[in-house]
């Protein structure tokens, strides 16, 4: 299990044990963490699981995929540390990961 902390735009925090192999998006959705819509179900095709990865974790979460890059082009309030949570695969390496949620999934 990897502990992942989701911080809402309001500041509220949820720390969840997520099984390796799931995505950071699935970790949130399966545990009813609000603020991640995930309309497309994990295909990097809707940009409604937008998160900001805490700077210190950026290297370990890896690079954006091509499709993810294309979808983030049209998302709202995108920053250099923006990712689609469905494209970050959870493993032991990500134990302790912190992601922040945007004000809206748009």
């Amino acid at each position, binding site marked *: 299990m990897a502990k992942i902390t989701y911080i809402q735009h309001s500041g509220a925090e949820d720390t969840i044990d997520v099984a390796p192999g799931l995505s950071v998006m699935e970790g949130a959705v399966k545990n009813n963490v609000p603020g991640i819509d995930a*309309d*497309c179900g994990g*295909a990097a*095709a809707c940009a409604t699981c937008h998160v900001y990865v805490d700077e210190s974790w950026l290297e370990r979460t890896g690079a954006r995929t091509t499709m993810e890059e*294309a*979808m983030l082009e*049209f998302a709202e309030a995108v920053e250099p540390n923006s990712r689609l949570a469905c494209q970050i695969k959870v493993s032991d390496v990500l134990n302790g990961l912190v992601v922040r949620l945007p*004000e809206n999934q748009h």
Partner: protein
Amino acid sequence: MADGTNPAADARARAFSMPLEDINLTDVALWSSHTILPYFERLRAEDPVHYHPAGQHRDGAYWSVTRFNDIVVVDTNHEAFSSEPSITLDDPSDVVLPMFIAMDPPKHDAQRKVVSPIVSPHNLHEMEPLIRSRIQKTLDELPIGEAFDWVDKVSVELTGQMLATLFDFPFEDRRKLTYWSDVSVAEPPDGVLVEEHMAFFNQVMGECVEYFTRLWNERVNAPPRGDLISMMAHGESTKNMSPEEFLGNLILLIVGGNDTTRNTMSGSILALDRNPDERAKLYANPGLIPSMVSETIRWQTPLSYMRRTATRDFELEGKTIRAGEKVAMWYLSGNRDETVIERPNDYWIDRPNVRHHLSFGFGIHRCVGNRLAELQLKILWEEILARFPEINVVEEPTRVPNSFIHGYSEMKVVIPRRF
């Protein structure tokens, strides 16, 4: 047996007994009679990537993709499946109207970004009080205890008002927007020659472009403002558009904001009328409105399909789609796919994963106005729940004879009383 006593069962029997190669999904009679769904059910089961030979659709052969997950594959692969030259099965004829929905990157990206700020979260927040006050006024003026057409008095009215606001279009002329939108997507009526229809289309679109050119000229000479015309007139990627491209993008924004939301508004009335248990659930718990809105958008699927054109040979479900061939992604069918959506034919306002539907498309062409659409529907239902204990559909609605626009031209309702 087809004995005429159960039209729905007869339609289903017909859909399942005819030879596969005779299935013609663009036959408008199947749409106006609302008998299309069993054909999709059969294709999903028996031939999910189905080839329609030339002779069915007026512009030639095409493929139908009918399963949810196959549609996602096509929709998200914009390199293998181009949106050019058109996102409907009609090929551009002498009138080519370039619009960013029917463009590939990088031009699509640049033009979409010019207009997308109008539906930013900030802008939606700013617009909410205006949308609400107009909905309140429109609902307050509805007759009580007598039949009226919900499509005309509410759905068309509210979407027309919204469009007029987005374009900062003269408010008293707002029905012109609806008219232009309707004409731009209409099928040639029975008995009217395609050439005649095209002449009529060109004439009406000419009026549209003339009107908007006047507005463009006003806005281009004034400081930038927050309406769509001003945004395009001052946007780096749009300010030098040709007249055809200007008209194309106008039609895109008008149709995108008109038919879709209009038919979902009407669809919500029909769905809740046909499903009294769901209606009771909603009235008992208005917190279900956002979920009900998503479910209605799935159930209605106001645009039945989007077309792509293969840029290279592509294997899907054991079939080879060849470079240059047309592909219709039938969102309406994917949204009824029993392998992805539980009890897909049921209207179930608090279903699990209610947002997991195809109606907005997936990938880079995903509906830019989806949050505005949801907002309008949400406010409409908050205000209905505050006023009317019930809205009853009193006649079978009239459906639009069109395989692209999935909606209603008339829906007679009665509101018996106010709260």
